[in-house]
């Protein structure tokens, strides 16, 4: 069938597209407004999540493994004592291969004693045996397609329009499905509230113009935090992008994390 292009037809289509775009943004704003009323997230009343897009970048080369971020997170968010962490640091030690071995590398040793909160013990072998050693800070990966949100049976876990993945503690039934679904081990069932908990990017802080506690305290500036929607050309987050080739954790799972790492190694999972 022959298609005829008329001025009226073209204008109608253009109008339709523009109307669609307007409706889309209006719908997004409406959804955000409804969420703000119904959901307890810790954000102030005048905060508009559609006007931000938060992003966390981590420069593995800069982390010194001091553990201040873990401690700050625990204090700021009243994270329960014990094996419960919203952020933690892993130490990777890759040994040199044994002499005469056909391997490119030796053993890979990983540890995170108490989440790295009080630093790391000395290694039980001489420096000469170590090929690489580095620290990897971990936190919620802010997945674009978050498996934890997908499986929550009641919708207590949700994606905020600003990129944060949050849990409504007044709504969570504590089934633990999201904890099983998170590939990065970032969630835990709080022994205090009996609900799922996770890194919120210190939502109560970032929605008031502050940085997350872990970013604020990091002495090495290994954690770079920013707002993509409001980042100028000199913003640290833009600089990080310009200066580094970035990677994400477990990319094969298709979760599209928005926590970006520079300087990762293949051993990091």
């Amino acid at each position, binding site marked *: 069938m022959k298609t005829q292009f008329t001025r009226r037809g073209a204008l109608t289509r253009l109008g339709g597209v523009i109307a669609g775009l307007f409706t889309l943004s209006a719908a997004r704003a409406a959804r955000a407004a409804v969420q703000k009323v119904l959901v307890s997230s810790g954000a102030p009343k005048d905060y508009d999540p559609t006007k931000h897009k938060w992003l966390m970048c981590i420069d593995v080369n800069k982390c010194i493994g001091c553990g201040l971020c873990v401690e700050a997170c625990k204090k700021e968010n009243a994270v329960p004592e014990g*094996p*419960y*962490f919203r952020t*933690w640091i*892993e*130490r990777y*030690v*890759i040994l040199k291969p044994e002499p005469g071995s056909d*391997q490119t*590398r*030796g*053993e*890979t*040793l*990983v*540890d*995170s*004693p*108490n*989440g790295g909160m009080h630093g790391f*013990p000395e290694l039980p072998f001489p420096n000469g045996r170590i090929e690489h050693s580095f620290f990897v800070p*971990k936190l919620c990966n802010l997945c674009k397609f978050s*498996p934890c949100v*997908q*499986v*929550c*049976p*009641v*919708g207590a876990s949700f994606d905020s329009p600003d990129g944060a993945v949050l849990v409504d503690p007044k*709504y*969570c*039934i*504590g*089934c*633990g*499905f999201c*904890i*099983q*679904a*998170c*590939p*990065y*081990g*970032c*969630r*835990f*069932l709080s022994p205090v*509230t*009996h*609900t799922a908990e996770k890194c919120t990017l210190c939502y109560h802080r970032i929605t008031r113009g502050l940085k997350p506690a872990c970013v604020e305290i990091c002495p090495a500036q290994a954690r770079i935090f920013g707002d993509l929607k409001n980042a100028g050309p000199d913003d640290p987050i833009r600089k990080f992008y310009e200066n580094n080739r970035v990677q994400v954790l477990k990319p*094969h*799972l*298709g979760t599209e994390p928005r926590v970006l790492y520079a300087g990762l190694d293949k*051993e990091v*999972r």
Partner: protein
Amino acid sequence: MTGEITNLVAGVMPRFEGYVYPNEAIPHPLWGFLIVLYPYITGLVAGAFIMASLVRVFKVQALEPVYRLALLTALSFLLCATLPLLFHLGHPERCYEIMMTPHFTSPMAMFGFVYAWYLMAVLLLELWFDYRHDLVRWAKVTPGFRGFIYRAFTVGVTDESPKALALDEKLGWILSIVGIPSAFLLHGYVGFIFGSIKANPWWGNVLMPIIFILSAVVSGIALCVFVYMVLTWTRRHTVDMRCLDTMAMFLFYALVVDATVEGLDWLHRGFAAEEGFSMMQIMIREKLFYTLNLGQVAIGTLLPLLLLGSLQLLRRRVPEPVRRRMIFGSAAMILVGVLAMRWNVVIGGQLFSKSLRGVMGYKLEFAGVEGWFMGLILLSLPFIILTVLVKLFLSERLPSGGHTPPHSVTSDI
């Protein structure tokens, strides 16, 4: 060697070997024995229903004596299916939110609807249509509280005209047909709860719902064999050998299909040997050695296959008492084996870290919500309910029309 399991964690509890994410280093797995029971019980429901539909839909007349028993078994287990889930929740008082504000992408939320559909629209209705005529008759001859129960269950519909009875049959038949995909959906969704977790290589698998359905059919038929034989023994009746042999035949074929698909799953996992396969090898060789190799494979699959398979070949040469014992033994072993399979799936998936660098241990405790005593109570609860249901609805003292033979059903439609 890179990627080898190592342990550098200072002061780590002996339950862990290698590196596990700090949030995974909790004293007990997040999903314990209760969540093992949940797919087990749900599977028994689905299987028992499929068993009943063999009579109603597939017109296997030899199984007529167990039709009602299978449906009542399915009902008593279905009533208990969500209890383990409920007890395990951090906030059980919020459980209604799954139905009130469901999140449609969540397999667990959808399970709530499938469960409700299956209980309300399929099983209860099918039972009601099947029993309605009997209930009306029993209500007339039974005095007291028992009579009141029968009257209440008729819901005031006391029409005994041939037209009404024909309609009962027709609707029961339709419900039975609807029930088969519903039963598959019920247990398929349970499999999907685990199979959809791509974060966990032990669970995330497209074959998981299918394996769950097939093992459910096997366990459900085995349960019907078990319950039927126990019931005839307690009532000092003789076992209908035609019925028992037919059940054994279906059990054997279902087990063959189930074992084949599970074998295919392992073949695929071994051949693909994707990331995390080394962890699976540790599970098979060490962590789940007894429950997998001994419980699931030897006791739950190979021995029953051997016993039931030999019965298919040599049925006429084996004397009846021996046959009865062989079939009963196979059914009991299958029931244990399928429980071991659920254990291997649920607990096995939590015995290694998602960092794929370490493993955890698990010791089933006696006390506590996730202890085996609680599990035992939850497992015996459906049997208690079934005893009450059998006393009420399979009573020997009341005249029962039973289920009309299927050939007369088709003539009505």
